[in-house]
């Protein structure tokens, strides 16, 4: 990193008001959210009838969206914990981006699961009548734990930055100043305070790794604990985790590019960061590809009767366009782009990141629905509409609204707090100078 004066760093990294672009972006997201809320009101009133879900395809894009959210939230633990514990320092400017993606995604994962419930009014039954042998209860427990650890991992490194921001009273305005003071007025930059938070962050970094593995492994068990072809797999936990790290890393590539160009952060999120993050994505894509080969080649080699219909539906049948799109967009093409040095330049890396995230969303859809449309006993004695699944506009609006909501949380966070840690950047620059 270039040598930068402390004042310059602070000035560059302080949160900025929305420009015109930012305002349009926020209004668009709010509009999508509003449409989603309207669709959800309709669903509350008419019941899940407004969806295309029926007795066979009883889980659809709500659940695939849930899996997607849980998956992308894993990146928080990857960047903050795994890289921190392995003493990798280049990722410091990315930690907060990763952590806010994690927090907002995991919150919306919880919301979308309530949207999928037939009786959201009975949500409290999960606590009053919860039974520990159900993987759903495991999921509730680990997701709540993950949310709280992620919030703390977001908050502790923010404390020194809050102190810096409290100093800019006029710039902040009354409301933000109150918020900053509420959150961080006790922080005095004392060495003891740093000692405590450093220790806390280390402990949390160690704890979050098993919890992160648990959230996505348990989510995979929602499927793998059933008998269904396509889900009945011992590979599922590892398959889900590797896919989750991939989509999260892809999400970070996108966020890096957007924040860098929008807030002019070229000095802080450098080409070198894109280069390194792209290499991480290639590695993760290769790992995920490996688990995909495991997941599909082995059953396809045997072609058990119960699996055959499901697999052929994916390879050459009705789901084959989505299947091959998802495989190429989430893995093959990004690998091809990012193995070249030129491909690891910001623009190409951004493009590859989009491919990874979009491909991964459809991959989640393929994990959930095709299996349900290939039950053990043939689909029979039901109306014709029960034998297919094409999501209705309400489902798209709600799923889209939840994605927009997650983006809104990230956007507002970046408006209120510095998206690149100021204090840590100053420390890093200092240590560079000393060295």
């Amino acid at each position, binding site marked *: 990193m270039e040598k930068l004066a402390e004042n310059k760093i602070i000035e560059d990294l302080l949160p900025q008001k929305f420009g015109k672009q930012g305002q349009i972006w926020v209004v668009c997201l709010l509009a999508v959210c509003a449409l989603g809320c309207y669709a959800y009101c309709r669903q509350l009133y008419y019941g*899940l009838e407004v969806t295309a879900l029926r*007795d066979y395809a009883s889980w659809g894009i709500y659940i695939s969206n849930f899996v997607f959210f849980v998956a992308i939230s894993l990146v928080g633990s990857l960047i903050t914990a795994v890289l921190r514990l392995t003493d990798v320092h280049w990722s410091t400017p990315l930690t907060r981006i990763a952590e806010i993606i994690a927090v907002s995604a995991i919150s919306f994962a919880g919301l979308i699961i309530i949207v999928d419930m037939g009786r959201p009014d009975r949500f409290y039954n999960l606590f009053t*009548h919860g*039974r520990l042998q159900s993987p759903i209860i495991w999921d509730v427990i680990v997701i709540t734990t993950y949310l709280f650890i992620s919030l703390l991992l977001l908050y502790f490194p923010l404390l020194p930055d809050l102190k810096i921001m409290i100093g800019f009273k006029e710039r902040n305005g009354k409301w933000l100043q109150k918020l900053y003071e509420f959150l961080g007025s006790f922080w005095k930059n004392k060495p003891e305070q740093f000692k405590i938070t450093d220790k806390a962050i280390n402990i949390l970094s160690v704890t979050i790794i098993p919890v992160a593995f648990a959230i996505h492994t348990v989510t995979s068990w929602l499927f793998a604990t059933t008998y269904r072809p396509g889900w009945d797999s011992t590979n599922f936990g590892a398959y889900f985790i590797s896919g989750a790290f991939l989509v999260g890393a892809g999400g970070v590539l996108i966020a890096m590019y957007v924040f860098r160009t929008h807030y002019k952060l070229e000095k802080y999120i450098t080409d070198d960061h894109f280069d390194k993050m792209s290499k991480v994505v290639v590695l993760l894509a290769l790992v995920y590809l490996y688990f995909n080969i495991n997941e599909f080649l082995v059953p396809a080699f045997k072609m058990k009767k119960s699996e055959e219909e499901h697999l052929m539906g994916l390879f050459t049948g009705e789901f084959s366009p989505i299947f091959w799109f998802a495989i190429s967009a989430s893995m093959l093409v990004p690998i091809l782009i990012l193995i070249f040095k030129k491909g690891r330049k910001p623009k190409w890396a951004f493009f590859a990141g989009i491919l990874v995230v979009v491909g991964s969303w459809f991959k989640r859809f393929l994990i959930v629905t095709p299996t349900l449309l290939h039950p053990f006993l043939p689909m029979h004695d*039901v109306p014709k509409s029960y034998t297919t699944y094409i999501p209705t506009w309400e489902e798209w609006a709600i799923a889209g609204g939840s994605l927009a909501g997650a983006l809104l949380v990230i956007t507002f966070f970046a408006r209120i707090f510095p998206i690149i840690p100021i204090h840590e950047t100053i420390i890093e620059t200092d240590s560079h100078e000393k060295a």
Partner: protein
Amino acid sequence: MKTNENSRREFLATTLLAGAALAGCGGNPFTPDEVTDVKPSGEMVKLLSVDGEIIEVDKAFLKPVPEMPPVANTEARVGIPGKKFAMVIDLSRCKSVKKCQSACNHMHHIHPGQNWIKVYPMQESEKTAPYWQPTTCMHCDEPPCVKVCPVDATFKRKDGIVLIDSDRCVGCRFCMAACPYSSRVFNWEEPQIEKEIADKPYSCETSVPQKKGTVGKCDFCPDMVRQGGLPHCVSACPNGVFFFGDILEDTVTNGAETFRFSDLIKDKSGYRLMEDLGTKPSVYYLPPVNRNFPFENNEKNEKA
């Protein structure tokens, strides 16, 4: 309030034992004031009282029992003591008349288009013989649906029956994904039933009324069984395909014929569906050999 409740219960118990209930001419048979409005006809009927004494009541005071009161939820979750219910489905007798299905749909007020009983045209492979296979809920002894339910809304009773408590179900549909027999259906919208039925007190033994946003499935008609009757599919089938009974008593009946369960399974090589999954169903099948009817898959059998 409490004493009122008690006297109600006593009153009801008396009339139930007698097989009839004293009633006024008004809508509520439990309001004693209205009883006085009925004019005695002079024709007396002998009844057995709770104490075992024979009493005489004027015929004008008699009215058929309006509604069996549902058993309490705690009782419905335990089941009928000392029983272990099972069903035997004789595939050699089925020609897909689907009377079982229509009776079941009618009695449980199932949403149009959905069925708890499905009658599958089965053919294992190209050269093997096709046959009809009616499926109910298998009431597994290792029920995958019960394992995954997060709130104990679907549960296994001591008498072997797997039921759903629609007052507790949160509608997550994990049980539907877990059931390998596709026997569960979901109430995607407000059930289209008459107000009279919708107003009935819900019981997991009757599964009526169905509730929006919850899961439903074949319940082995425990309300009928509790009264000593047979599930609706059993009595509705004109070909005697369904046999129902108690494994502990080792008897099953389709209403007309009664067999020793173990002999029937032994003699006709009974089997269960998807034994390899380890779900241990309570529904047994007799293979489609020496059939009563040839297999005819006409379009009129195909509603879908």
